[in-house]
């Protein structure tokens, strides 16, 4: 089974801090994604990556950056955390070479609170 591991289940940070959310997958997937999930707004894509050092902006990239130095690891960075970034963050990965019907596999999520 695919395993997507997010480094923290719960995280509390202060306004203005630089925050790192880490995600690791163990199935050699090409694609990795960062979403934020808010009540009533569903899943919104922040960034995704299709290869090492390659990234593309999603629907809400403002205030975030990402890093993918190794294929298995995809990091989300909040450069200067603000209270409106309090949310649930979900990481996902998917296989690209296996066909277009490949699903995304998700981590457990990180509930981030910015005080």
């Amino acid at each position, binding site marked *: 089974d695919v395993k997507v591991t997010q480094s923290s289940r719960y995280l509390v940070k202060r306004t203005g801090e630089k925050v790192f959310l880490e995600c690791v997958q163990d199935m050699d997937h090409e*694609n990795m*994604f960062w979403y934020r999930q808010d009540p*009533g*707004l*569903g*899943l919104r*894509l922040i960034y*995704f990556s*299709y290869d090492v050092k390659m990234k593309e902006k*999603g629907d809400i990239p403002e205030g975030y950056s990402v890093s993918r130095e190794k294929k298995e690891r995809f990091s989300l960075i909040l450069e200067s955390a603000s209270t409106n970034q309090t949310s649930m963050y*979900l990481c*996902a990965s*998917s296989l*690209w070479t296996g066909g*277009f*019907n490949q*699903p*995304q*596999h*998700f*981590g*457990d*999520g990180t509930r981030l609170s910015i005080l």
Partner: protein
Amino acid sequence: AQTVTQSQPEMSVQEAETVTLSCTYDTSESNYYLFWYKQPPSRQMILVIRQEAYKQQNATENRFSVNFQKAAKSFSLKISDSQLGDTAMYFCAFRTGNNRKLIWGLGTSLAVNP
């Protein structure tokens, strides 16, 4: 623009009964892939079922089945013999052709009552 609409924000069903969650989508592409995901309370999002648009036969996974109406751009999920463990948020999503991103609906919160 490509969109997914889940018209039922909340639903409830009695244990052992059947429930259908609706999903409609909009795309001008002919080649696409449809997915239903389940997110139980405080638990991981998991794939429930998937369907390729070029396949006419509706996908089935145990108690879960879909009613795929391509002309109507409808992809509903039927859950038979509902169980308490089916209580979750259900998301409909699709991806077109060689697009790596999924387009998501806002979800339907399903409560299965004893």
